[in-house]
């Protein structure tokens, strides 16, 4: 078993959307709309939410068209959330212990 996979098992990255064979830092807790989630420290908040099965990030102006991460590079503004109260693009913000993320 290679070192990366061993480490994956050690930190319990059993998520079907997290690609195997990648060595990641330890998972840390953060919250999205009050729900406690775990993701490797440094992963983008947008990626962490996607891996947690959360794709609807905000409801935008019209409830029939929720927002979801689209460009992942800071251009489209569709992944806007509030991080510790401040508007931020979730694709550009790394996960840290205790981040409080809410829909914008």
């Amino acid at each position, binding site marked *: 078993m290679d070192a990366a996979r061993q480490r994956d098992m050690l930190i319990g990255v059993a998520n079907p*959307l997290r690609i195997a064979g990648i060595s990641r830092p330890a998972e840390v807790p953060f919250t999205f709309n009050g729900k406690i989630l775990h993701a490797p420290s440094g992963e983008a908040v947008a990626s962490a939410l996607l891996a947690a099965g959360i794709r609807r990030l905000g409801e935008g102006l019209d409830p029939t068209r929720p927002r*979801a991460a689209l460009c992942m590079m800071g251009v489209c503004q569709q992944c806007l959330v509030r991080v510790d109260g401040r508007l931020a693009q979730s694709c550009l913000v790394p996960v840290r212990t205790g981040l409080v993320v809410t829909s914008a």
Partner: protein
Amino acid sequence: MSFDIAVLGAGPAGMAAATQAAQRGARVVLLEESPAPGGQVYRSPPTGFVIPADADSREGDALRAALMQSGAEVRTGCRVWGVGGGPLVPQGEASTPFRLDALGADGVPFDVTARALVLCTGTHERIIAFPGWTLPGVLGLAAATILLKAQGVLPGQRVVVAGAGPLLFAVGAKLLKAGAEVAAVVDLATRGEWLRALPSLAARPDLLARGAAWRAALTLAGVPVLNGHRVLAAEGEAVLRAVRVVRLDGTDAQAIEADALCIGHGLVPATEATRAFRAAHRYAAEEGGWVPVLDGDRRTSIDLLYAAGDGSGVRGAAAAPASGRLAALAALHDLGMLDATAHNAARAIPAREFTRAARVGSAMARMMALRPALVTVVAPETIICRCEGTTRAQIDAALDDGATDMNQVKQYTRCGMGPCQGRLCGETAAEIVAARVGGREKAGFATGRLPLRPVPMEALLGDFDYADIPVPAPAPI
């Protein structure tokens, strides 16, 4: 802080430009929005992530290593929202050094000034609107490469890859390797178009081999590759459930079940900064759209303002470092830091490299050029501007009411006034306008405005308070 040369954007062009200029003794600052230098193709994973190396990561690491040793000051995680100086001074006054206003990674606003400015702002993805493109589960092709290469996360477990250009096959092959199921690759291009592009790839056998390996991996896995097809609609209630595809002639519609659709219709040069400086631009569909007018050494129409990399015309990551070096050398020469003989000697190699790599890049850029037929079929009720909810019908109504260019359509409909500042809707909207007014040149582009990127007002104001507003003494009665 004052510098000889500021470089905006730390992709392959920006890294090479900053490295070249700093190695030759200039005081250089390089500003980048992402947490680390690299750009999108050579994007590095977050600190602490170890992702197995591939050809892209090795090239990126080499550029990063050279940059770190060059002595250039590198500021990452900062959002440059303002440009000024240069020609942007009151009429009749002499031009001043360029000024860049940014929000730092620490949330503290700062500015830098520099005598010369090299713009290496890269591209963003073109996604022509279609019904259901706002459903969660639909994301960009470039977004998929970032998720796969720099985050180690799959966009879904069963994925449809659709759109145009080599990225289709890169993403398809990477998804397979990462353990996802690829339900189909839906390619706008016909087999004939790919065959005609092949001779241009001969200049870079390494890139040709990589492309062939991607296709072979998809064939081996039995992934259907639908050439000459487009996405008709993304379907689902709360999230994506299926992708409906159809031949370009409208026949053979079929629905493919999937939990993710990665779609991209090519790359558009990011010209916000050159537009803000009112540099001259030209429309070049085969280079991605509007690009600044440049000379062979990457000089724009504005003194001491240069543009390099895909942001000045899509030529691919392989050609970008050479164009960055050309821009840096021209800036050094124009600042009097490199004499004409030394400049001529130094520019020969990057000029040759650029020409060679750009031949392949141009062929690929042509495959990714906008296809007006895709816009013709956009239905009236389809949302074009996701930020403002503007539909095609509203844009058509504005044109019926007398709007004649992009600025007017923006003012009539609010299309492009939301937080993405037209980066997502601009191409679809401009093509709708162009079809009515007689071409993209006539349709024009939205005038460059500050901020270049949205920034929270509170972050810029800092401790500034309402009470701090200076109130002039009242005039005597």
